[in-house]
């Protein structure tokens, strides 16, 4: 029951946050100096003042701000984000929709990779506290944390793509002969294309999460119940993985939730480097073209994704932590 109430409360706060996101996106786009229309028009030398006015009217930019916002919000409710400025004039939502799965796929794979590698790494470092292994991983983590992801991407492309020629360095699948491949061949081709992007987008989070796992484990290993578990003669494996890790993982759920905006933000970088047709690349092209409905749609969609991701992490935390699940407040 307590859990149910907790979840209801969480969901109720989603609404205002969502409205806040739309309001801020709208204000960012409209209050930034330099009007979208004027920049759009600057590219076209044949644009007369009358044409400019007509375009402004066509996109509703001549109406008062609050009307424009409500209009846009009304559209958003039915996923009508307007039409893109680019020559194809396609609805913004269609453009985002077809690119979203790719970005989500890569981010989910990256989160999976982060969890599979970072948690055991952090546990191993904490268990062998201050050992050679611990120090080496600490140094590596510091380096991985400071390395710009796009540079690591370049180096990986240089080594595995150009030097060794093992992995493709751009796109989602091969351009030549892809149609002739069998089903498994296509899957394999996809996988080969995804290795480097997933690796690059996971790197920063990997470093961060293994660091947090380590300090969280160190904290838990100091607790009395670990001493108790050891004292009653449990094998060390069981002490570490049953008693310690389960408690150490709790704060990590929150950390993982907090790293979602960074992961999605990273999409812009690796999608533009590896030429992957996802929302990050769409954002980049819309910035370059100053395509303003597309920009706004993109901004709102990725923030809502982040919001949902955070919410999932919160709920995961509630499900995993019996103190929240049962509503009992314990001293600790």
């Amino acid at each position, binding site marked *: 029951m307590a859990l149910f109430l907790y979840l209801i409360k969480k969901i109720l706060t989603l609404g205002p946050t969502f409205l806040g996101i739309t309001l801020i996106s709208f204000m960012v786009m409209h209050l930034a100096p330099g009007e979208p229309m004027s920049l759009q028009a600057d590219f076209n030398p044949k644009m007369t003042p009358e044409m400019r006015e007509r375009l402004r009217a066509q996109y509703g930019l001549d109406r008062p701000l609050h009307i424009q916002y409500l209009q846009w919000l009304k559209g958003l409710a039915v996923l009508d984000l307007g039409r893109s400025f680019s020559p194809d004039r396609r609805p913004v939502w269609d453009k985002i929709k077809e690119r979203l799965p790719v970005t989500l796929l890569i981010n989910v794979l990256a989160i999976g990779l982060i969890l599979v590698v970072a948690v055991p790494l952090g546990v191993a470092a904490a268990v062998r506290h201050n050992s050679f292994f611990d120090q080496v991983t600490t140094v590596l983590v510091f380096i991985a944390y400071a390395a*710009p992801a796009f540079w690591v991407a370049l180096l990986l492309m240089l080594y595995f793509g150009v030097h060794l020629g093992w992995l493709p360095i751009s796109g989602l699948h091969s351009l030549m002969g892809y149609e002739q491949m069998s089903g498994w061949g296509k899957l394999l081709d996809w996988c080969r294309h995804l290795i480097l992007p997933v690796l690059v987008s996971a790197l920063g989070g990997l470093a961060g999460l293994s660091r947090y796992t380590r300090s969280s484990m160190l904290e838990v290993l100091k607790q009395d119940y670990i001493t108790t578990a050891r004292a009653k003669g449990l094998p060390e494996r069981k002490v570490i993985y049953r008693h310690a890790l389960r408690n150490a993982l709790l704060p990590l759920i929150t950390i993982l939730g907090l790293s979602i905006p960074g992961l999605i933000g990273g999409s812009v970088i690796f999608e533009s480097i590896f030429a992957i047709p996802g929302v990050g690349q769409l*954002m980049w092209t*819309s910035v370059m073209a100053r395509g303003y409905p597309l920009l706004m749609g993109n901004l709102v969609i990725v923030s809502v994704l982040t919001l949902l991701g955070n919410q999932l992490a919160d709920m995961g935390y509630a499900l995993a932590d019996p103190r929240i699940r049962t509503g009992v407040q314990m001293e600790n």
Partner: protein
Amino acid sequence: MEAVNHQITKSPNHQITWLGRLGNNPLAVAGFLIVGFLCLVALSAPWLAPYDPHAIDTWHILESPSKAHLLGTDPLGRDCLSRLIYGARISLLVGIVAVGIATVIGTILGALAGFYGKWIDGLIMRFVDIILCFPTIFLIMAVIAFLEPSIWNIMAVIGLTSWMGVARLVRAEFLSLRQRDFVLAARISGASNARIVFSHILPNAVAPILVATTLGVGGAILTESALSFLGIGVQSPTPSWGNMLTEGKDNLEIAWWLSMFPGMAILVTVLGYNLLGEGLRDALDPRIRSE
């Protein structure tokens, strides 16, 4: 547990000043040396750089590293080492100014929320939560799309989108500090709100702000380089490590040196700030040592 903590803080070790503790931490010293070295390089760029960073030399384009050009030349024949040295100015300047802006905004909002509490706190923190939902780079890109991509705009935009961490931190400090006896004493002696905030609470919150600021510079430098790499940050011909890497990407197959050195410069710089920041954290607050 309380008692044990108490003893640790009272141990003779505590007599050593935080500067002494910082000096005893080899990683922090390494960070300090890196940051100091970079500042020196940035300040003395005109004397250190062997060539003019903007000098185009069409006879020597894309030359690999040699005695004449230690780090090779770029597609316009400009000397990469000279551009790297001048790039340090841009990276450090953007990093420090952006974080300065973020620190001021974050401190003001965090202090307001933590000091006044109630609905002001609720409003400001709600706002922080909402801004945190935006992947920073998307927010920055949306703003930059309609601005001239000048170095000043980059600094302002990075600063305006990265103050949330500082705000949360300052709020937490203020919440705990305003309950302390010395604040109550100041209030009883009739000190004004402004006086309590500026001369009693804020000085006690400086340590965590300093740590966050130092760690923030690394992050801001990474953001600037990513933006410049994407072509929406610092624009060529002004040399920035990020836009030098764009040239590296465009010539990946033929000129590895263009991709290698600017990236290493970013890595070392960010590493330096992160090591110094972590060292400061350990030195300034012995209770929250990471070990």
